[in-house]
C-alpha cells in the first residue's frame, strides 16, 4: 500500500513543481521556436511592448495560442486516460484507443460537410456529442453480457469503433474535396494555425473537466480497488462512473474540438505518471495533466522541425512516439497496469 500522506508530501510536491516548471519552460520554447525563429526577449516584448512587427504578430497570434492549446489539450487527454484506465481496469484504455476521439472527429466532420457548420461554439458541442455517443457505445459494448468484456476485448471493440468512425469520416470527405482540404490536417490531430478563439470556446469546458477530475480523485482511489470493494465501502459506484463519463466527454470532446483527434497521450502518460508518482489519484491526476501538457508541447515543437518548412501533424508525431509504448504495454499483458 502506498502511504496516504497529505499535502505536505515533499517528494511528490517537488515532482509536481518540477513538472510545472518544465511545462512553463517548454511553453516558452514553443513560443519562440519554429520557421520564424525568435528570441525570448522578443517574445517578452511582444506582450509588453507590442510594435506590430511581423515577429510580434506571429508570437501573439500564432505561437501563443498554439502553446496554450498544446498544454491544455495534452493535459486533458492525459487526465481522461488516467480515469478511463482506472474505471475499465484496462492499461490500454484511452480516448484514442476506445474510439472516443474518432467519434468526436466524425461528428465534427459530419457537421462541417453536411450542415456547413462553422460557428466555433456549435463545433464544440458537436464534438461533445460525438464523444458522448462513442463513449456510450463503448460502455454499452463493454457492459453487455454477464461479466462484460475483458479489458483486452474492450480494447479490440474500441479499435473496431475507431475503424468504423474513421471510415465514415473518410467516406464523407471523399464526396467533398473542399472540406477535405479544410479538415485533413485537423483530422490527423494538429494544433498548427489554431486561433485563440478556438481555445477560448473550449477552455471553460476543459476547466470544468479538470476541476471535476480533482474533486473525485479521492473517490477514484477507492474505486481502483475494485467495484465490489468500493461498493462495500459505501461508494456510489454507478454515480462515480457517470461522473467519469462526463469528465472524459468534456476533456476528450473538448480536445478534439480544439486540436483534432490526437492519440496515445491518454495511454502513455498515465503509465509514466503512475510510475513516477504512484497510484494515488490526488497526486496522479495533476501530475499526469502536467506531463500530458509537456509531451504534447514537445511533440508539437518536434513536428515543426522534421520536414521543415512543412509541418507534420502532431497527431502523427504522437503515433510515432506512442506506438512503441503501446506495443510494450500490450506485450506486458493485461493484468499489470
Amino acid at each position: 500500500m502506498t502511504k496516504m500522506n497529505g499535502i505536505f508530501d515533499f517528494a511528490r510536491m517537488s515532482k509536481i513543481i518540477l513538472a510545472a516548471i518544465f511545462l512553463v519552460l517548454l511553453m516558452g520554447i514553443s513560443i519562440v521556436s519554429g520557421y520564424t525563429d525568435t528570441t525570448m526577449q522578443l517574445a517578452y516584448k511582444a506582450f509588453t511592448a507590442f510594435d506590430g512587427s511581423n515577429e510580434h504578430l506571429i508570437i501573439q497570434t500564432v505561437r501563443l495560442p498554439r502553446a496554450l492549446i498544446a498544454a491544455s489539450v495534452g493535459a486533458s487527454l492525459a487526465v481522461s486516460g488516467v480515469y478511463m484506465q482506472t474505471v475499465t481496469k484496462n492499461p490500454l484504455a484511452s480516448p484514442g484507443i476506445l474510439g472516443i476521439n474518432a467519434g468526436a472527429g466524425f461528428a465534427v466532420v459530419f457537421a462541417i460537410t453536411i450542415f456547413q457548420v462553422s460557428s466555433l461554439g456549435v463545433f464544440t458541442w458537436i464534438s461533445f456529442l460525438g464523444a458522448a455517443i462513442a463513449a456510450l457505445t463503448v460502455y454499452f459494448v463493454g457492459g453487455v453480457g454477464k461479466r462484460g468484456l475483458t479489458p483486452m476485448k474492450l480494447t479490440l471493440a474500441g479499435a473496431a469503433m475507431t475503424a468504423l468512425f474513421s471510415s465514415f469520416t473518410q467516406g464523407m470527405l471523399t464526396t467533398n474535396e473542399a472540406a477535405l482540404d479544410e479538415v485533413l490536417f485537423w483530422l490527423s490531430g494538429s494544433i498548427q494555425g489554431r486561433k485563440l478563439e478556438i481555445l477560448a470556446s473550449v477552455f471553460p469546458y476543459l476547466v470544468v473537466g479538470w476541476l471535476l477530475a480533482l474533486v473525485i480523485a479521492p473517490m477514484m482511489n477507492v474505486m481502483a480497488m475494485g467495484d465490489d470493494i468500493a461498493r462495500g465501502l459505501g461508494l456510489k459506484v454507478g454515480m462515480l462512473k457517470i461522473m467519469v463519463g462526463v469528465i472524459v466527454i468534456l476533456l476528450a470532446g473538448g480536445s478534439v474540438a480544439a486540436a483534432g483527434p490526437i492519440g496515445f497521450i491518454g495511454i502513455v502518460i498515465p503509465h509514466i505518471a503512475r510510475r513516477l508518482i504512484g497510484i494515488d489519484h490526488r497526486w496522479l491526476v495533476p501530475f499526469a495533466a502536467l506531463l500530458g501538457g509537456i509531451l504534447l508541447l514537445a511533440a508539437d515543437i518536434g513536428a515543426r522541425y522534421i520536414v521543415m518548412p512543412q509541418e507534420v501533424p502532431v497527431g502523427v508525431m504522437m503515433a510515432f512516439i506512442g506506438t512503441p509504448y503501446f506495443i510494450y504495454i500490450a506485450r506486458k499483458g493485461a493484468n499489470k497496469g
Partner: protein
Amino acid sequence: MKGYRSFRVGKDRLSLLLDNNALVKLAVLFIITLILFIASVGLGDVKINPLTVVKLFFGGGTELQQLVVHQFRLPRIIVSMLVGMGLAVAGGILQGLIRNDLAAPDTIGVTAGAGMSVVAFLWLFSDENYSLIVSINWLPVAAFVGATLVAIAVYFLSWKDGVKPVRLVLIGIGITALMQAGTTTFMVLSPIYMASQTNIWITGSVNSVGWEDVHVLLPVMFVLLLMAFFSARNINVQSLGEDIAKGVGSPVERHRFILLIISTGLVGTAVAFAGSIGFVGLMAPHMARRLVGSSFGSLLPVSAFIGAILVMLADLMGRTLFLPSIVPAGVFTAALGAPYFIYLLMKTKNN
C-alpha cells in the same frame, strides 16, 4: 465418408475433401454472385435490364449502353469481385494460421501496412506533374512488400512464449496506428489534389479503376487464389496446432511461411488496386464457416464467393444510394464489419 467427395490431382498436388453439402452451397453462392454481377452491371445512372446486360456481353445493346458498361461498370465490378475474393481468402488463411477468429488482414495491421507502402510509393515515384515515373505495375509489388513486412513484424512482436491471438491483434492495432500515421504524413506532404485521391483510396474504393487495372489484377489474383486453394490442406493441418501439425509430418515452419506469403500477397494485390476495403477479410471467412464448417478445402472457395459478393454489393450501394455523391465501398464494409467484429468479441468466451 458418406456424402463426401475427394478430389485428387496428381499424387500430392491437390487433394481436397468436399462434402456434397458444401458443393451445393458453393453452387448457390456462384449463382448469387452471377446474379449480383449482372444486376450490378445493369444498375446505376443508366439503368439496363438484365436481359440486355447479357446481350451486351455478346455485343448487343445500344452504343451508349456499350460505352457505360464496358468503359465504366465492367472494370470496377470485376475488380470488386477479385478484390473481395482476395481479401476473403487472405482472411481465411490468416484465421487458420493464427488459429483465431479475430485474425484478419485489417486486425493484424497488414492492410494498413500495404496501404502505407502504396502511399509512400506514389509519393516517392511521382514527378512534379504528379505522374508516375515508374510503371504502375510495380504498385502491387510495393503493397505486397509492405503487407509482408508488417505481417512478419507483427508476428515477431507478438511472440512471447508463442503467439497469443489477442496479443497479436492488439499489436496489430498498434502497428495499424503507426502505419496510418505514416500514411497521413505522406498525405500531408503531397499536394491537396493527391491527398484527395489518396483519401478515397484509403477508404477503399474501386471508383477509378479501368481495364488496365483489370489486366494486371486478374492474372495475379488468379495465380494467388489458385495457390491458396492448392494449399488448403496445409492450412487444415496448421489449424490443428503446431504440435499435432508436426506430429502428422508437416513441415510446419515452411508451410506457415508460404501460407503467410500467399495471404500477404493477396492483401497487397487487393489493396494496391482498391485501397483498404475493411473487414471483408474478417467477415467472409466467418460467414463461410457458418455455412460449410471449418475444413479449408471448402471454406476457402466459399469465403472467396462471399467476399466477392460483399465487395460487389458495397460498391453497388456506394455508387447508387447517395447519388450524385459516390461513396467508397469501404464505408459500407466497415459499417457492416465493425458491428460484426464487436459481436464476435462479445460472443467468444472470456478467458
